[in-house]
C-alpha cells in the first residue's frame, strides 16, 4: 500500500469535509468572534487553547479538529516521502506545492486559534485545498538529485523557511481580501476591520523574518555550491521583490501609519509576488530551474 498517497488523499478529503462544515457554520451565522472582550475594543486574546475551544460553536470545533487532522495527515505524507527518497521533499513542484499546503494549514490553525474566527480558517483551508488539488495534477515521481541539490540540510531549511513564510503571507492576503469585503463591518461572521488589520500585521511579522531567512539561507547555499552568495538569478530576484514589497508594507504601516485599504492593497500585491516567485520555475530559467 502506498501510505504516502493514502495520507495525501486523507488530507485532501479532510480539507473537503472541513470546507463543507465551515460553510455550514458560516451560513448558520454567528456573532463576530475575534476575541472581543469589550464592545469598544476587539482584542485578539487567546493564549489559551482551552479558552479558544470553549468559545467556539460545535460546528466550529469540528471544523478546527478536521483542519488539524488534515494538517497531521499531510505532515505524515511528507515524513513518509522524506524517508522514502532520503532527503527533504522539496526538489520538485509537486513536493514544493505540498510543502506550501503544509505552511498554509499550519498558519491557518495558528491564526484561527489566536483570533477565533472560522471564516479565516475556511479561507485558509480553501487556499490549501486548491493548492493540494493542483499538486495532485503534477507528477509525484521523485527525481534523482543533481549534485547541486545534494545538500540535504540547507535544502530542507531553505525551503521549509519558504513554506512558513508563504503560509503566513497567505493568511495576510486572506485578511486583506476580507478587509476589503468588510466595509463598515457589514458581515458579522467576518472579523471586524480592526481585527483584520491586526491579523494582517501579525502575519507579516511572522512571514517577513522567515522570508529574510529564506534569502539568507539561499545565499549561504549558493556560496557553498557556486561560490557566489548572489547572482541575480530570476528566482532570487523574484524573492527579493517579494521581500521588498513586505518591507514597504512594514515601513508604511509603522512609520507612516498606513492602515486600511492602502495596507490591504499592498498585502495583495505582496501575495501576487509570492505566487509569481512560487511559479517562477515555469517562467524563467536560471539556477533554480531544476524543478
Amino acid at each position, binding site marked *: 500500500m502506498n501510505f504516502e498517497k493514502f495520507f495525501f488523499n486523507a488530507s485532501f478529503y479532510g480539507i473537503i469535509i472541513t470546507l463543507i462544515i465551515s460553510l455550514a457554520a458560516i451560513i448558520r451565522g454567528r456573532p463576530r468572534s475575534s476575541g472581543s*472582550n469589550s464592545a469598544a*475594543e476587539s*482584542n*485578539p*486574546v487567546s*493564549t489559551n487553547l482551552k479558552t479558544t475551544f470553549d468559545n467556539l460553536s460545535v460546528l466550529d470545533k469540528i471544523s478546527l479538529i478536521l483542519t488539524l487532522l488534515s494538517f497531521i495527515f499531510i505532515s505524515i505524507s511528507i515524513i513518509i516521502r522524506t524517508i522514502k527518497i532520503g532527503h527533504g521533499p522539496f526538489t520538485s513542484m509537486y513536493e514544493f506545492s505540498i510543502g506550501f499546503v503544509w505552511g498554509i494549514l499550519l498558519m491557518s490553525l495558528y491564526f484561527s486559534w489566536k483570533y477565533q474566527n472560522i471564516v479565516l480558517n475556511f479561507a485558509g483551508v480553501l487556499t490549501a485545498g486548491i493548492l493540494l488539488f493542483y499538486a495532485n495534477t503534477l507528477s509525484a515521481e521523485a*527525481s*534523482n538529485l*543533481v*549534485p*547541486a541539490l*545534494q*545538500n540535504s540540510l540547507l535544502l530542507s531549511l531553505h525551503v521549509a523557511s519558504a513554506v512558513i513564510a508563504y503560509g503566513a503571507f497567505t493568511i495576510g492576503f486572506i485578511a486583506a481580501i476580507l478587509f476589503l469585503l468588510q466595509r463598515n463591518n457589514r458581515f458579522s461572521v467576518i472579523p471586524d476591520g480592526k481585527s483584520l488589520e*491586526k491579523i494582517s*500585521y*501579525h502575519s507579516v*511579522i511572522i512571514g*517577513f*523574518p522567515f522570508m*529574510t*531567512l529564506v534569502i*539568507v539561507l539561499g*545565499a*549561504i547555499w549558493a*556560496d*557553498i*555550491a*557556486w*561560490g*557566489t*552568495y548572489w547572482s*541575480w538569478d*530570476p528566482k532570487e*530576484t*523574484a524573492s*527579493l*521583490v517579494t521581500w*521588498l*514589497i513586505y*518591507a*514597504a508594507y512594514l*515601513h*508604511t504601516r509603522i*512609520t*507612516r501609519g498606513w492602515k486600511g485599504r492602502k495596507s490591504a492593497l499592498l498585502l495583495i500585491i505582496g501575495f501576487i509576488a509570492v505566487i509569481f516567485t512560487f511559479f517562477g520555475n515555469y517562467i*524563467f530559467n536560471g*539556477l533554480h530551474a531544476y524543478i
Partner: protein
Amino acid sequence: MGKIIYRFFISMKLTITLILILTILSLLGIFLPQISGELSNSADGYSWWLENVAQKKFGSFSEVLAFWGFFNIFHSFWFLGAFILLLINILACSINRFKGLKRRSRKIQSRKNIDFYKKGSGSYETKTKMAVENTYSTVIKILKGHNYNPVQSETEGSIYIAGDKNRFSAFGTYLVHLSLFLLITGILLGNFLGFRNNQFIVPEGSRAEVGNNTGLVVKLKSFSDQYWEDGTPKDYRSKLVLYENDSIAEEGIVRVNHPFSYRGIRFYQSFYGPAVRLKISDADNDLLFDDSVALSRMVKQQREGNFRLSAGDTYFVNLIDDGISNRSVMGTENSVKGADNTEDDNGIIVELYDSNFNLIDRGGIKEGLAGRIGKLTFILTDKIQYSGFIVVKDPGTIFIWIGSLIFLAGLIIVFYFPESKVWIALKTSHGNNIDILVKLKSSKKFNQENELSSLISELEDKLK
C-alpha cells in the same frame, strides 16, 4: 539649503519611493534578458551579445534599452543610484532618530499625575478589597512574572509603580538598518579585493595557472563522474594538487557543494567535459606538443577546443569532436541527459590554420593512430576529460554573513521583543478599597493591546 537637503534625506516618503524603484528595476531585471558579467566586461563580448541575443528579441529598440542600461540593470546607474540614495536615507534617518531612541530607552520613572492614567489608550481601572501591602506585593509579583523591572515611589495613601521591559529593543531597527552597511562593505571588498573565474578549465593530467597574482598552479590528477539510471549526473569530483612556488601546497578533492579552499581561494566544481591527449611532431619527427586539450566550447552541437602552436611558424589548431559523448555535461545549469556513445566516438577532427587564420589542412585522426595534417603529424594518445572550476577569492564574504546575522537578530528583537512600559497607581479610596489604575504603552500598538489584556486578566484573577 542644508535643512532642505536634510529633510529630504530623512523623509520616509523617500524610503518608500526608493523601495518602489528598486522593486520595479528588479522586476525589469527578471523579464528583460540580462548580459552576464564576463560578456559585459569585454567590448567584443558585449557587441556579440547585443547582436545575437538582444537584437533578436527587440530589434532596433535594443539599442535604446542598451543605452539606458536595461540589459545590465543591476549594475546600471538607476539601480546603483537608487541603492546609494537608500543607504544615505537609512543613515540620515538613523542619525535623526537617535536622540529620541536614547530618550525612550532611559530607565522608567513612576508617574503621579492621575490624568496620565485615565486619558488615552492603554488605560485600565479596577478595585480590590485586599490590604494595600498584599496588593502591592501581588502587583510587583505579576509585573516581575511578565518580565518587567519595577520601580516605585510613595506619597500619602498612594503607591506609584512603574516597570519596563526590552527598553533597548528600539535599537533593533538600528541593527537591521546598519547591517545593510556591513553587507555593502562585503560587496565592495569582494569587488575590489577579490576575483572570480567562472571558466577555469584543467584537463586530466594537466596543469593550469590560477593567475590573479596568486602564484598557484593546479594539476588535475583525476576526474570521475557518476550517473543515475536515467542519465542525469549523480556526482562528479576532481582530485587536485595545488602547487605554490613549484612545490605541493595542498591536495584535495572538489565536488559540488564541497569546495576546496586554500588561503582564502576557493575552488568549486562547476562543469566538465571531454578532452584529448595529443602529441604533435613536425616533418623531422621533433616533438612540438605533448599535452592535453580541453574540448570546452560547444559549437553547433559539436565539442571544440583550440590552442596556439609555435613551431618556427605559428599555427592555430582547432580540434572538433563531432560525436557527442555521454560524458559531455555542461555542469549544473544545463545538464544534458547523455546520448549513447556513437560508434565513431574514438576520433577527432583537426583543423590547422596559419597565423592569419587561413585554413591549411583538415582531417580526422583516430585514437592511438597517427595522422598527417598539413606538414605536421598528430597522434591522439587518449580521450580523457577536463574539469571546469569556479575559482573565487572574496574577502568580503565574512561581512555578508555577519551582516545577515545581525539583520536577522535585529528583526527578531524588533518583532518579538517589543519595548513595553507600564505604570500602576494604587490609591486607597472609600471603605477598604484600593483603586488600581493601570497605564501601558508599547512601541508596537499591536503588542500594547495583547500585553495590557494579559496583565489585566492576571490582575483581575489575583486581586479578587
